[in-house]
């Protein structure tokens, strides 16, 4: 620990004695997140309780050159919340108030520490809808969702977090309050800083308030499961549905490995011999739902689905989604370490990406279960390993690098929803080129001259 005692006591004056943690145990407890990466122990953990105290904490850190890593629930999979040595972790979970839920103008103003599922539930209770639903929404916070531009199962039709951010208020590296955006649907006042801050992973500022767009919930929905004897026909179906100009709210893919893992674990009655499954849901106006549902059924049949199971009621719909919900748990129980990737391709390239993943699993002799959001090109090839097995782990790292190359060669991207953090910072150049990184570094240096805001993330040091 290298923070001076005067800095600690100043932090205590701002956040209260309980708002600053410096014991070895507490510091260790904030040295990691959900990414499979080495922990780094911070010098202190600070929990501000008000907007003003966020500004004061940052200002102190800037003056003393202390790195600040903001943390909501620590569920990100890219190491974005792994702190810096001698730095502090700034926890947002005491800032978890919903400031205003405006039903008339359909927006909500929140503090960054509000848990996503809590927000979605409160919004739903007012007859409105906040669609982004990251897999970790039961614990993840809105601040983290915006900082990582989190996605979810509904991305295909409803987009991701960035599509709902109307305005932001944040503190910059010097501790000054900055606002951008508005409660209005239209707003072109100056730079789109809300856009810049989204997916910035805590490297450009610290959120103190976020305004999110709400929409009316769909009136009806219909879910179905299509069973395939070949991965190719399943993935071609995805492309065909999109080509037919139908936009399901959810279009999920599951390969044979994952199907069997789910069956072993949850015994939900999936066909073990199926090579792939598609889980599809359409929503909207009842008439549209009925029509889209029928057209999708026809497309599935035409492209060779062995069977199509349409849910007739809520219980059956729940059954369709039970399989998908169980996927991660089922895979997680097979091996100690799970590397859940999210390299993403244009939707038309899904068949090519799935086949590339299958080839890599054979090449490196690594079990890979693939499931995920086929509708938006965001698959989750999940590598099963044990990080204690050095040789195997090395193969996993090489395999992941090849996965990234495969996605990029198909016109895709390194990350669809998990972010870059420190896990993928080294691969950034392959996607955006050195000059883009230089541009980002120049911008960062200008607004964070002492490089205190989550240094090392996204663009490296």
């Amino acid at each position, binding site marked *: 620990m290298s923070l001076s005692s005067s800095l600690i006591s100043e932090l205590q004056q701002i956040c209260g004695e309980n708002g600053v943690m410096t*014991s070895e*145990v*507490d510091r260790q407890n904030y040295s990691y997140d959900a990414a499979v990466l080495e922990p780094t122990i911070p010098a202190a953990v600070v929990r501000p309780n008000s907007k003003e105290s966020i500004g004061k904490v940052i200002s102190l850190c800037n003056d003393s050159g202390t790195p600040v890593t903001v943390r909501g629930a620590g569920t990100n999979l890219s190491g974005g919340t792994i702190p810096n040595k001698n730095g502090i972790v700034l926890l947002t979970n005491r800032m978890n108030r919903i400031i205003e839920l405006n039903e008339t103008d359909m927006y909500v103003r929140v503090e960054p520490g509000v848990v996503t599922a809590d927000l979605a539930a409160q919004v739903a209770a007012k007859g409105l809808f906040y669609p982004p639903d990251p897999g970790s929404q039961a*614990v993840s916070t809105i601040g983290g969702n915006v900082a990582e531009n989190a996605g979810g199962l509904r991305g295909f039709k409803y987009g991701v977090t960035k599509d709902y951010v109307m305005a932001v208020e944040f503190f910059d590296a010097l501790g000054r309050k900055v606002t951008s955006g508005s409660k209005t649907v239209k707003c072109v006042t100056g730079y789109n800083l809300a856009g810049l801050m989204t997916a910035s992973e805590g490297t450009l500022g610290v959120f103190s308030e976020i305004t999110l767009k709400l929409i009316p919930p769909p009136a009806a929905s219909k879910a179905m499961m299509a069973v395939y004897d070949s991965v190719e026909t399943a993935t071609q179906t995805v492309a065909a549905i999109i080509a037919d100009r139908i936009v399901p709210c959810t279009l999920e893919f599951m390969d044979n490995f994952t199907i069997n893992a789910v069956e072993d674990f949850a015994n939900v009655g999936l066909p073990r011999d199926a090579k792939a499954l598609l889980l599809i849901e359409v929503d909207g106006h009842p008439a549209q739902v009925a029509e889209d549902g029928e057209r999708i059924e026809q497309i599935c049949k035409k492209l060779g689905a062995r069977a199509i199971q349409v849910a007739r009621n809520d219980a059956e719909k729940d059954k369709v989604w039970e399989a998908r919900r169980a996927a991660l*748990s089922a895979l997680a129980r097979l091996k100690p370490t799970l590397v859940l990737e999210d390299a993403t391709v244009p939707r038309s390239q899904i068949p090519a990406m799935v086949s590339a993943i299958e080839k890599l699993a054979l090449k490196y002799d690594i079990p890979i279960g693939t499931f995920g959001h086929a509708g938006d090109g965001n698959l989750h090839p999940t590598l099963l390993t044990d990080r204690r097995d050095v040789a195997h782990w090395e193969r996993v790292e090489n395999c992941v690098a090849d996965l990234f190359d495969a996605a990029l060669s198909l016109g895709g991207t390194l990350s669809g929803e998990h972010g870059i953090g420190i896990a993928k910072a080294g691969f950034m150049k392959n996607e955006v080129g050195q000059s883009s990184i230089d541009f980002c570094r120049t911008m960062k240096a200008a607004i964070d001259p002492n490089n205190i805001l989550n240094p090392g993330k996204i663009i490296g040091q």
Partner: protein
Amino acid sequence: MSELNKLSKSLKEIENQLTDCMKCGMCQAVCPVFKQTGNEGDVARGKIFLLERLAEEMLTDAKGAKTRIEKCLMCGTCAANCPSGVKILEIFLKARAALTEYIGLSPVKRLIFRGMLKHPERMDALVDTAARFQNLGTSKADPNQGTRCSKLLSGVIGNRHFLPLAKTPFHKTYPSLNIPAGHSGLKVAFFPGCVTDKMNPEIGKAVLKVFKHHGVGVFMPKGQACCGIPALASGERNTFDTLLAHNAALFAEESFDYLITPCATCTATIKEIWPMMSEKDSIEKFRAGQWAPKTMDISQFLVDVLQVAPAQKSYAGSHSIEFAGDTVTYHDPCHLAKSLKIKSQPRDLIRANAACTFVEMAEADTCCGNGGSFNLQNYDLSKQIGMEKRQNILASGAGTVATACPACMMQIRDVLSQNHDGVKVKHVIEIYADTIKD
């Protein structure tokens, strides 16, 4: 560091289980303690990380880690919701034993566990004496609950509202029983548990009344000891081993079809912890393994085995007097709902009493905050969690809250008593027994 090396070695036993945690953090969504504190060290992921660091000798403050690892209700909610299926309770029990062996037991705990709990006859004598003098220095807290509080002892017990010790404990009225099977053709071993014995003997009596009504034979050996979970949860494995050996020898004296308790915690301990934590290749391990499938909570036994079903008859024809016209809600004890997945049977048992109407409360299966010794060590936190339970009980509008764990009853009684709420606290077996004529 060489000392730390010893601890690291003893944690190796659970190292493989620790690795199963993928740090996804989903345990944060369901942990009652984390909900109150928001501290990573108070949730399973954080505790497991600390244990990993101790095993790797990357953390020097073993004492600090122990404090964190003990700050847990052991409610098992995280384990029930863990995507990776990490055996969290087993990890924590084994880790607490290893840490206690390394750091030692506090003098107070040593006195309680080794001096008293370990010796059932000494414990009974002490409780007898305490029962006789307990009115000195305590005063009535809430007449509805029959609770008392103590200014004199507030330094030790805080402002708790507690039920006084029973004037006559259950084992004084029924030192032992050996009744042959009646018309059911079944004989059960009966383990009343400490809280039933010393504080709520009426629960034990209700169980016996029900057994008699259904023609169930009862074997209840004399001199039963505690199931051992309080000692084990504090890392005192030696006392646990002694208590298990003592009980295992008593219950081996007679054959029985089922082993029944009216306490969710005792049931889960006997069914799961006894086989898990008994010494390898020991006679206790063998017996515990034999008994585990036969061990049942009283409501599961009545509903699943004896086919007691919700009442069809109208309230007018009901014998029940105490619950006539009453609305009853149910709190799921963690050890029953989370560990053993028993949720419908206690509700069916309440519904079997035609005189009362069952209503579901919100968040019926969230922990009441008792957590055994958690309540002793973290009373303020325990009470905060309990107050949320109280809100849900009151919001249900029920006149009676029933549960299936005497420890939960203590906690719920305390939080209701603190506010002088007029809601009655009952064990489900009391509600069912009330339908049977004496």
